[in-house]
């Protein structure tokens, strides 16, 4: 398991701070969050509405739009052993990363898909943008085959060969190209898309690909969105509540699918959810966020069996579990307004174990060891050594 700074991790976030400048004042959405995503793990991010789950992952992709701004911090992406700070990169560089090396499954598949474009256009897009070289090679291979068979018309085939050789040369020079792609290139991308949809268990993919999003059910839409994210075999897959609007039986299908795909593509997954049940099933390690701060970071079993932070403990007790009757324990009070968050520990007004120091100082992340010697980090003065 990785720690920020070790070579084992693929993504390191340090002291990330995101503010939103609204008319009412500065919303401190993320306040100094640090964590690392290890190679090949599934990291769950849990928290209530407005705790900054989505803002965290959007800042990884540099998708925070004004009035939001990444104030401080580094997001190191370890690509080919040379870390890149994603916060400082140009838009052009980020476009080459997005959907290619880091891709995202958005919440509410129905809204994430463009209603006026066919599934084909939307799934092929990632191939056309990021896999031109591969597509050109495939197209040329086809042309070559036809030339060898002396298919008619030879002149056209030779013209096409010249055209796509030129395209291939261009594609090698530059990762991104805009403009016309050419018929054969699109056709090749469609073929790849059909194969991809098939691997996601969509029945009859060559027919589905011609349809529009509204013709598909919620579960199918979600599969299409997942296929778009997986098209370029990303090294990091960010899933932002991929199952929260689906029925339980469809949710089970999607969760099983994501687990299978993780084994197949060896991606690292950042899985955001507010459902503690889902996170306990899918994640290896879990981050708990509260009001824009990281409160606890541990392996999933440790977190559910021995939660340390008072917020995590209260959160786990408030979930209805089978066989537990009577009243549920709830957390008193409400989530604070981030326009002027509480001083010190942001949880202290609702915390049953709040001390004098909690109101004055922000707790650091204290590191504890769990039974197997793995790190269990918690931001609470109760655990100050």
């Amino acid at each position, binding site marked *: 398991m990785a720690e920020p700074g070790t070579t084992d991790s693929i993504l390191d976030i340090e002291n990330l701070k995101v503010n939103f400048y609204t008319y009412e004042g500065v919303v401190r959405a993320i306040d100094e969050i640090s964590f690392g995503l290890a190679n090949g793990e599934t990291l769950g991010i849990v928290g*209530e509405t407005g705790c900054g789950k989505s803002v965290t992952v959007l800042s990884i992709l540099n998708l925070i739009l004004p009035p939001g701004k990444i104030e401080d911090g580094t997001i190191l992406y370890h690509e080919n052993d040379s870390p890149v700070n994603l916060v400082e990169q140009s838009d052009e560089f980020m476009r080459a990363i997005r959907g290619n090396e880091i891709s995202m499954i958005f919440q509410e598949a129905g809204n994430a898909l463009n209603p006026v474009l066919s599934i084909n256009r939307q799934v092929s897009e990632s191939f056309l943008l990021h896999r031109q070289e591969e597509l050109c090679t495939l197209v040329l291979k086809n042309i070559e085959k036809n030339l060898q068979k002396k298919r008619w018309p030879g002149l056209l085939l030779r013209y096409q060969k010249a055209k796509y050789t030129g395209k291939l040369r261009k594609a090698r020079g530059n990762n991104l190209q805009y403009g016309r792609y050419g018929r054969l290139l699109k056709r090749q991308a469609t073929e790849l898309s059909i194969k991809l949809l098939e691997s996601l268990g969509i029945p009859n993919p060559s027919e589905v690909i011609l349809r529009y999003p509204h013709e598909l059910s919620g579960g*199918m839409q979600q599969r299409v969105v997942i296929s778009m994210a997986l098209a370029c075999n990303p090294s990091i897959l960010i899933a932002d509540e991929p199952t929260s609007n689906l029925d339980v*039986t*469809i949710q*089970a299908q999607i*969760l099983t699918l994501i687990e299978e795909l993780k084994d197949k593509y060896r991606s690292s997954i950042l899985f955001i959810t507010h459902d503690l049940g889902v996170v306990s099933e899918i994640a290896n390690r879990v981050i708990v966020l509260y009001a824009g701060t990281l409160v606890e970071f541990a392996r999933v*079993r440790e977190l559910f069996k021995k939660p340390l932070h008072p917020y995590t403990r209260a959160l786990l007790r408030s979930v209805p579990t089978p066989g537990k009757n009577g009243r549920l324990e*709830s957390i008193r009070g409400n989530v604070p307004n981030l326009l002027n968050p509480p001083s010190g520990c942001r949880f202290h007004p609702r915390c049953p174990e709040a001390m004098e120091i909690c109101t004055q100082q922000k707790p650091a992340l204290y590191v504890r060891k769990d039974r197997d010697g793995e790190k269990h980090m918690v931001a609470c003065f109760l655990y100050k050594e």
Partner: protein
Amino acid sequence: MTCNETEARVLSELLEIQNLKTYYPIRSGVIQTTKNYVRAVDDVSLILVKGECLGLVGESGCGKTTLGKTLLRLEKPSAGAVYFNSEENGGGKLLDITTFSGNRLKQLRKRMQIVFQDPTTSLNPRMLIKNIIGEGITIYNLARGREKIDRVAELLNSVGLNRDHMMRYPHEFSGGQRQRIAIARALSTKPDFVILDEPTSALDVSVQAQILNLLIDLKNEYNLTYLFITHHLLVVEHISDRIAVMYLGKIVEISRTKTLFAGALHPYTIALLSAIPYPDPDIRRKRIILTGDVPNPIDPPEGCRFHPRCWLAVERCRIEEPLLEDAGDGHFVACHRKDDLAAEYHTHRYRR
């Protein structure tokens, strides 16, 4: 369920639904002839006992909400009867409310209320909380002037808010507080029967716990009967005495909560239970993955409606529609293969 119940049972009944159907016509063509129907609720029979909480579970589009709305006469039933034990209308008699209209219907609605799913859309943004909660009181002439204000304050207190909140607008409240206001509004006419249509699905877990606790307290305090509509099985397990599972307009299984969680007899219920993510990493169950989606209720499959997705389906399931049969101790199930399932079930245990 049939109505051949003992006299004592009839007295304790609050609501009895008999073969209720709600169809929505699909019209097309120039003269708008009815081509087909969406069979949202298809032949549902149920009994609700006074003071109980019945959970109604099912996937989206299975007709849960339509059933709830039909009970309140917010939708017009196409066939069947709903008998309501209304104390005001003749003392302890069950009356068919599908025939009610005008003033009788108005008086009936005082006794049955609903809390909607999303409190941000179910509260009028331009009305003060005082008026939102007081509207029912005014309409039924329950109180006036200072007395009405006191009543509203009392209702706000009972849902955990206070008098100061009266002169505010809905947008000034958080999601959980808005749902509390919606609950106070439902209670303003002192109903016997409250339909809760996914009251916690738009809320966070910690707030959900507060609302569930509140609902349990209010039920005991005001002696209410709940119909709790939800798709979240762990929530329904916590609050309900009995659970009815609905699939494509039909009730497929109904039983006491404990019996259902310990030994469900319908394959659909078992698949549903196996699909719940438990917040405990030690419980690793074999998820039963149902293939495909819920079929279209315009053209439901013949025979058992679940057969295209059922892993136990045999020839008989494709031809003959199973009826709700008693499996003992108030456990009713509509499945041809429920006896085979009892053995099969142990290989598919959903919990340790």
